[in-house]
């Protein structure tokens, strides 16, 4: 049981997660942002580590990644920053990023460092299931890290079952087949997709991401899943002045209760 499992065991509805890119807009505010988000009521966080070629991301997160790299963010520095993580933050933390920086860092070493820092899970969009299973799953298990898989409206039922089997905390449902930063798809076909997933009665909770930007889209997502993730919209807040003090109002606007 890691912190994610405990969270999902105790809370089933309206979970709110926030994504942000480490090293953006300033190099050394990674933990300040995490602390502020916890105080404001976020249930868990995804801290992105930047990559030069983020193919699954739209302009907002691309920009934050490039800026973070220009600021000097690296995986080594991020783990340095995370040394005090568990002195300051108690909610579950996931790291999110692309596979190449992890491969260069060493996958086993990455998992160990993440566990030492008190990280609970990892999201690597371009790490395929086959490579995860055959090469890396052992490192994740040894370090009590959850690997989070993505599901899109095009993912087949068989594959969703397999993902459910390999997952041990939650499944990340993409609200559409798109890059990050788009609008929430509210078409009939997308409703069918959520209903189809719900009817499968998966063993893992589901969290919806991509296109969640306000209370309306958050509520919509929570009708079908255990919660939702806000990314690009929050990264945009970080572009503004005095962003740390604006975090409570941001969270309240998305989830008023």
């Amino acid at each position, binding site marked *: 049981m890691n912190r994610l499992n405990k969270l999902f065991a105790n809370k089933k509805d309206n979970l709110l997660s926030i994504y942000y890119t480490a090293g953006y807009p300033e190099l050394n505010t990674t933990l300040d942002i995490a602390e502020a988000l916890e105080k404001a009521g976020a249930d868990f966080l995804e801290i992105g580590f930047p990559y030069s070629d983020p193919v699954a991301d739209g302009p907002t997160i691309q920009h934050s990644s490039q800026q973070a790299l220009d600021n000097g963010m690296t995986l080594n520095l991020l783990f340095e920053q995370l040394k005090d993580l568990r002195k300051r933050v108690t909610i579950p933390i996931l790291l999110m990023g692309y596979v190449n920086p992890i491969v*260069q860092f060493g996958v086993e070493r990455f998992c160990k460092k993440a566990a030492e820092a008190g990280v609970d899970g990892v999201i690597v969009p371009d790490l395929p299931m086959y490579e995860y299973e055959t090469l890396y799953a052992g490192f994740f298990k040894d370090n009590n890290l959850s690997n989070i898989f993505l599901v899109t409206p095009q993912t087949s039922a068989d594959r969703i079952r397999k993902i459910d089997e390999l997952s041990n905390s939650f499944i990340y449902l993409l609200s559409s087949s798109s890059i990050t930063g788009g609008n929430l798809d509210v078409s009939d076909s997308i409703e069918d997709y959520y209903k189809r997933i719900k009817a499968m009665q998966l063993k893992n909770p589901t969290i919806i991401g991509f296109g969640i930007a306000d209370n309306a889209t958050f509520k919509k997502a929570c009708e079908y899943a255990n919660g939702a993730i806000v990314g690009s919209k929050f990264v945009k807040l970080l572009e503004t002045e005095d962003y740390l003090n604006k975090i409570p109002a941001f969270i309240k606007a998305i989830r008023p209760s």
Partner: protein
Amino acid sequence: MKYGVNEQGYYGDFGGAYVPEMLYPNVEELRQKYLSIINDADFKAEFDLLLKDYVGRPSPLYYAKRYSEKYGANIFLKREDLNHTGSHKINNAIGQILLAQRLGKKRIIAETGAGQHGVATATVCALKGIECVVYMGEVDMARQAPNVSRMKMLGAKVVPAKSGSKTLKDATNEALRDWIANPVDTHYIIGSVVGPYPYPDMVARFQSIISLEAKKQLFEHTGKELPEYVMACVGGGSNAMGMFYHFLDDESVKLIAVEAAGKGVDSGHSAATTFLGREGVLHGSRTILMQTDDGQVVEPYSISAGLDYPGIGPQHAHLYKINRAQYTSVTDDEALQAGLLCCQLEGIIPAIESAHALAQLEKMKFKKDDNVIICLSGRGDKDLDTYIKYFGY
């Protein structure tokens, strides 16, 4: 084939399909169907006919007499520059448009560096009346302006890639993002032997016509089954893989792949991937790429837009690692000088990409009767501005 891809999409340690879930269904559909489609008799007949009547194949294997005298061996040029649209890129574009039709796709996207693949793709889309969107780095659009105009005349929409280095890798990122957003109706015609499996294998098969012809043609010229050397330039590596393909299992044939050293391998302005790169993941496959210690992709440099890519195809990475092919590099200056020499000795203006392979001739030690095949992958019309500026004509 000993050096071919395995069922999981790997060549030794390299390959695979490192794609986000959003791309998985597209890539999986291709994986399941590509072999049955391209091995189908109807597909083969249409592919062969178009290569013959539309592309103008077989491309000649030209015995370059004055080169041969200069370098003391029998030098043959495989004339891909004479293909319709001016380079080998058309071979793959024809193959993939026929595949896309059979997959029921209504829209084509592509990335392009020098513009040769973009032009080839725009051409086959015009041929088949299919919508075409080409992503091209903003920097490349400026240095290959004639090709941008050609694509537009052929009816394609050219979208500038404005992120990162604004060159080929960024155009590839943008094309992948487009494919994520349009998963059902769109086929992505990747122009080189890169990307997630099955692309490296599929593109290599379409380009393998180069070596299939060359092998027969060499026999007609010399009565010999095999050459001593086969040489080609490598960016992503599609002309090289096409040129090597049917010689891979003939271990006596020395395969030479020439990368772009730019201003010099140690200058900080280079695209010599095997010299400067390490193993990692780029654009969907595990391969060798130029990157920082932190795993960020390094922006490459070459005067040749078609070689200005930070990785190489996974099969090349494998051939490099096991020493089946020799990877070397030549600088901008060496390539341009070789391009001019080709004009003056053989009356052929080569693409600057292909001129890299020609420049390697200067560094080789041949025996008198050695037969050497070099892939002249494209013609130099698109590079006239660069040549003119460099030599001051």
